[in-house]
């Protein structure tokens, strides 16, 4: 470690505040980007599934009247 003089507390304060503010701001932006990208992924997936053909339980027209009585 370097030998620090009587003004060292001011240096450490200034450096600490800078590191905490910039680090915190960077992490905040990073997590916010992750969250909004996840939401964008959800919306996109929902839109893709809405656009896809829907599988239904409807019977084909030839069997619309139900199974023939045998």
């Amino acid at each position, binding site marked *: 470690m*370097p030998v*620090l*003089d*009587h*003004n*060292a507390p*001011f*240096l450490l*304060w*200034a*450096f600490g*505040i*800078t590191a905490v*503010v*910039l680090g915190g*701001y*960077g992490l905040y*932006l*990073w997590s*916010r*980007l992750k969250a*909004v*990208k996840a*939401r*964008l992924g959800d*919306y*996109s997936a*929902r*839109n893709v599934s*809405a656009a896809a053909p829907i599988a239904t339980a409807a019977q084909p027209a030839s069997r619309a009247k139900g199974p023939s009585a045998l």
Partner: protein
Amino acid sequence: MTTRVLGFASLLLLAANSYAIFFVARPDRVQGDAARIVYFHVAMALVALFIAFVVVFIASIAFLRTGDLKWDRLGHASGEVGLVFTTLVLITGAVWGYPIWGTWWSWDPKLTTTLILWFMYLGYLMVRSYAEPPRGPRYAAIVGIVAFVDVPIVYLSSYWWRTLHPQPVIGPLADQQPSSSIVWLLLLSVVAFTVFYAFLVRLRYDIERSEAAVADLGVADLGKVAHAST
């Protein structure tokens, strides 16, 4: 991909810069260890004044000319990061000033014009956030152009008026060139903070773009619901 590269590069450069500030830089004969504050205080000031706010100025003009929202997003991202840097410049300047000047704050031309700059870019972000689109981005762009007038005033204030603040140590207007080791360390700081600025602006820009896409998809979803219910 670019975001990750910028993130790793800025992390490495800032780590190297911190090492250099504490282990390579020598304390000043008069100021002692407080002189080491200058390496990040000056670097953040240069990046805020000559990169962040210049980008806001150019993006504001481009937005008013083209109406393309990408310029508005870029200006907003750069303005926010520039404001964070300016806030830290004011704080670290005050922490440096106390042991050197004997006071945390003085209504010195350099400090006063920097505080005015801080309020102007705060106003830019407030107009951008609170005014409804499409007027918000347009009004913010006008504020972004007007606020830029203060940037050269801040830089030249120590030449125009009598001031406590030291004269610039590097650049064409510097009175005396410092030793080469100080210049190299200062340049390393400027490069490290420039890359970190680019990383933060990239993140902020991507957030804006993704939020706009989510809003568009949300509106599209609402449209589908409304269509299905009729």
